[in-house]
């Protein structure tokens, strides 16, 4: 049933290929638990957390500040280790990989979008976008060509030679999105991607992120405060100390 919302275009089940429901999930986390040190003993962030993200899904994780959303993302990315549980990305058990292999995983299988854009000021826009390709060993010319192509897709075509200092916040976030998708990863992790943007720009950026992800066939896992973002996802879950609970969702 088509919902009459401004975000109709981002609902993957309305148009486009049917979901590959019976394919293995891109991300599969089971039984994750994490505590952090605090005054007066370790504080439990979450326990017994299960999460599965299928290819092409857009999942929003909401929750209070400090509840551990960023930590969860870091665990999924292999940058942090859980106290219990395991994480599998594209079938690989992240915990079994050594540091170099995890870095390679992040380099090829993951894309990141942060709240604070984190664009390197000393690289021009094209090189910033091409960074994951360069890290993966792609020759410079090919990497830059793909970066230019990506820039066109995010609406900044032809500006590959410009410097980040000249861009506004919204444009910088678009660069970040381009960088997150230029190497066609199956999973994009986004940590409050619209947190630093005004509502108008935020909506545009979000539309762009989800559209590009859908075009590239990437799943998106978004951590967010924003109701709007949660509403745009296929599925929204709520992070509590006991794991993920179902949140508001717009069912297709």
């Amino acid at each position: 049933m088509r919902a009459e919302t401004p975000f109709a275009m981002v609902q993957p089940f309305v148009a486009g290929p049917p979901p590959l429901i019976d394919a293995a999930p891109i991300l599969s986390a089971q039984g994750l638990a994490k505590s952090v040190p605090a005054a007066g003993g370790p504080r439990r962030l979450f326990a017994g957390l299960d999460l599965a993200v299928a290819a092409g899904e857009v999942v929003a994780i909401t929750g209070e500040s400090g509840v551990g959303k960023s930590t969860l993302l870091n665990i999924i990315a292999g940058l942090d280790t859980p106290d219990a549980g395991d994480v599998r990305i594209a079938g690989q058990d992240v915990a079994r990989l050594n540091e170099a292999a995890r870095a390679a995983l992040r380099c090829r299988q993951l894309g990141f979008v942060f709240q604070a854009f984190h664009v390197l000021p000393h690289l021009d826009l094209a090189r910033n976008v091409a960074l994951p390709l360069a890290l993966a060993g792609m020759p410079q010319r090919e990497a830059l060509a793909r970066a230019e192509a990506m820039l066109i897709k995010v609406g900044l075509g032809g500006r590959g030679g410009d410097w980040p200092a000249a861009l506004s916040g919204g444009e910088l976030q678009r660069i970040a999105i381009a960088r997150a998708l230029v190497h066609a990863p199956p999973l994009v992790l986004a940590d409050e991607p619209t947190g630093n943007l005004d509502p108008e720009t935020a909506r545009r950026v979000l539309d762009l992120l989800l559209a590009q992800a859908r075009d590239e066939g990437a799943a998106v896992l978004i951590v967010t405060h924003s109701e709007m973002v949660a509403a745009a996802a296929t599925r929204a879950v709520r992070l509590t100390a006991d794991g993920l609970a179902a949140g508001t969702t717009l069912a297709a």
Partner: protein
Amino acid sequence: MGIMPAPTRWLLIGEWRAQPLRIAVAVLAIAVGVALGFAVHLVNSAALASFGRAVASVQGRADLAVRARSPAGFDEALYPRIARLPAVAAVSPVVELQASWGELARPGERGAGAPKVDGGRFTLLGIDMLRAARVTPGLAAAMAPSIGNQPDWDGDPLWLSPALAKAAGVKVGDMFGFTAAGTQVRWKVVGLLPGSEDARLAVIDIAGAQWRFAQLARLQRLDLKLAEGVDADAARRAITAALPADAVLATPEDEASRADALSRAYRVNLGMLALVALLTGGFLVWSAQALSVARRQPQFALLAVLGLPREGLVRQLLIEGLALGLAGALLGVGLGYGLASLVVTQFGGDLGGGYFSGANAQLAFPPLAALVFGALGIVTALAGSLAPALNAARQSPAAAMKGMGERPDPARPPRAWPGLALLAAGGVAALGPPLWGLPILGYAAMALLLAGGVALMPALVRALLAPLARAGSGVPAVDLAVRRLWGVPQAASLALSGIVASTALMVAMAVMVASFRQSVDDWLVAVLPSDLYLHLEAADAGGLAPADQARLSAVPGVTNVRFQRLQTIRIDPDRPAVMLMAQGGQASLPMVARTDAPAPPGSTAVLISEPMAWLYGWRVGAVHGVVIGGVERPLFVAGIWRDYARQWGALMLPIADYRRFTEDANASEAAFDLLPGHDAGAVQKSLAAALPPAVAGQAQFGRPAEMRKVALEIFDRSFAVTYALEAIAILIGLAGVATSFSAQVLARMREFGMLRHIGVTQRQILAMLALEGSGLGLLGALAGCTLGLVMALVLVRVINPQSFHWTMDLALPWPVLGGLVLALLACAAGTAVVAGRRALGQGALLAVRADW
């Protein structure tokens, strides 16, 4: 709101409590700079004051003095002529001779650690007690009670200054044996001279002096007291008109300023080095403050949002710098005083420079100088805090709050023209002449060149890395490092400045010292061609008589002897005396300029030393008149030789001409060539046995090899302070580099976190940092070496000649330079990596979020 609103006070004090070590290091750096400068000043003033007092007590504090041009003195008939002048109220005639007792220490063996010798030099004055009582009462005072009271003296009476009595270990009533003017005597000490603690002085009756020491009808000095109310200039003119050729008029101020001038260049040199230490202290403050500001950027953003205006923030950081400077200055003044006391006991008042041996320096605490040096420390700390303060205020608080912080823009390349302008100004200054006898423009040139090199570095880095940045290497860590350095070289300017300045100073001083040492060594080889040398100390008026000379020449094993007579003569009353060297036989000298033209008829061909040519402006081929033996003689300058031993000039003429001009047939030096197969030690013993007993204690034998060794040891000792200051400068420079790397890494925490998220490994990030550090180190070291070589040229070609009036050949110590540069590179890369390690912990990952 007052000077410090509460929120800023809380946050800033919290910062100090959190980082006590860094604060302590910055305070210490300032303290070291202030201490060194203050210590050098203290030691030098103490030595100078003591030397000045010693000189003054020898002179007796008369209004004016007529002095002989050379130790040979002038005819005593001048005395009644001057006494008759209406402008003169009283005249005291003085015989002044250099004397010595016991065995004299060899020139290289002074200071702590030297073998104890039971001898030394002093000045012997023969005065007329009655006349001296009117003109120089200080000298005559001790004598009065004793005269007429001693019916049976065993010898002639002698009064010693307390310093001399202590050094010689004699008391009133003892007999004291000494040699003066070639005569050895043993007289009874009947009293001590009051008020002459610093000088080694002995006073006897003038008649005894003239009779016993072969000074009949000769005087070296007339002390004058002018009549009341007489015009000083008129009196001077009248007296000068009455003087013969071999006497000049001098005032006590001339003497004092001569003593001052003797060592001024050396002291200024030391002062400059202390300034270098202070500047590197300032650099360390700069880097420490930059680091502190980088860490506190979020706090400052909060303060700005809460309402602290930008000027308030700048003021706050400057107050921090002021506090650092104040603490450092206080500590430095105390440390400096302690250091000065230590140094004076260990090295003597001249810090090894050889100017003030024998003077007994006492340290006083001068409040004004302490204030000046303290203020210097505070100003340096303030200057070091200025750039970080302005930088902090420039950050947009909103951007900092969102975590975007500093946004350097590679589209705006660093400007090259300020650096180029400074370098050009430095080049122009280096061509300037000395001012007031000091190479002030030379020092200014060094400072301008250093500043220019440092200012040019960002633009230079950008230009040098452009090809590499364009081409790319394919290795991500390398590309990221190169692009970072190329894109925002200004961000690294602090570390770069430290590396460039450290390297430049180190290279400049190393090259200068190596060149000087090599030139001195080459010179020593050239001027010491014989096998054995004999030198008589304190023999201005004595020496070896012709009979003694014949006996020495006849000693078996000796094929050839060249005798030399040394006398000091005053050519210009405003300048220190020149050394007249009457040379027998062919002298072996390294010539700088010469002419083969014969001397014009009636004139005598002489050679002059480089300092003399510089100071007096004499050129090869010119004829100048100099009073020798009471008559002005025309001297033809036939050549100029390089001389490192006599800073105020030397004049060499054939000994035959000298003996013709004066009646002095004695010799004070001899150079012996030995027959092959004869042992130098045995010949030396025979020669020593052949010496007359009177001069045995004054005689010093030397072989070229050991003389070279001793001379180079003196050289190294006089540069010990330079080496120490250089080492301190380098250490502080490197510490500053380490701190600034840390500041950089802190500011880029989020960048590293992001890189880790997108798949860069820890090792790659460390490699990137190591490459950045090495890149900075390499570029900085190369630029620093080039700059240092240019500065060395200024030191060798401008500062040294203008200070000391000699030249030297440039020598580049490649192994030393190469080793130092490699060490610097390793340090730079190492500190970058160490600073980076902290960035790779959880801190970086979590810093990716905007909240802190």
